[in-house]
């Protein structure tokens, strides 16, 4: 019986998604700011 640690897996996958998407968004926003003015 494998140990019950799915919560850790979910936490990690969520963290990765947040950082990846968050960084992508920050890049796009900063680029947009440069294009505007």
């Amino acid at each position, binding site marked *: 019986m*494998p140990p*019950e*640690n799915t919560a850790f*897996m979910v936490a990690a996958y969520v*963290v*990765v*998604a947040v950082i990846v998407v968050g960084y992508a968004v920050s890049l796009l926003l900063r*680029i947009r700011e*440069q294009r505007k003015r």
Partner: protein
Amino acid sequence: MTLRERGNRIARLGTVVTALALLGLAGVYVRAIVYTPVEAAQGAAQKIFYVHVPSAWAGLMAFVITGLLSILYLWLKDRRLDLAAAASAEVGVAFSAIILTTGPIWGKPIWGTWWTWDARLTSTLFLFLLFVGYIVLRGVLTDPGIRGRFSAVIGIMALFLVPFIHLTVYLFRTLHPAPIVLKPSRPSLPGDMLTTLLLSVGVFTVLYAGFLMLRYGLGLLREAREEELADAP
């Protein structure tokens, strides 16, 4: 092509590549969570492996590329090399953040402790801190020539630092083996798991490329803006 046009072009390309990579990442998520078997001894937490290891690969690649671009910049003095090195450094910091967060989340259930002071985590920690310093330094230096040269110095030294940190941890571990609460045996990855890992590595590589293009494009656009402001009457 003007600086602004080039910046826009690379930013657009970067957006496409990043979008593709994000789709790929979603695919890897599905494959890892649903279609890859759970490892019997370690449980579902073992699957963190599929995002942690590729991040480590991407992070290492980012910092090595920064180091190499730094050397090229000092040699060829092309400002674009400096912008590219800085872009790679920032992307490396992002991937390091992933490594430093998923590492403990993986470590706790698998190794029994949040932080394991192994070679990879330790190197990543210090590289992360060093390149945060790199970014801060760039922030306080206003002259682009000085900024480029000083950044290059840090980037090159970081390249040489990594093997020494690895050596330090290796020596430390050899002389003081840590008692490990749970001891997962080195899994020889069966086919399915290996495929998932390789797919993930591929996706993270594309993600690195996409981020790099976006960040480089941003750098070019900022430089274009500086020039425009300087030329304005």
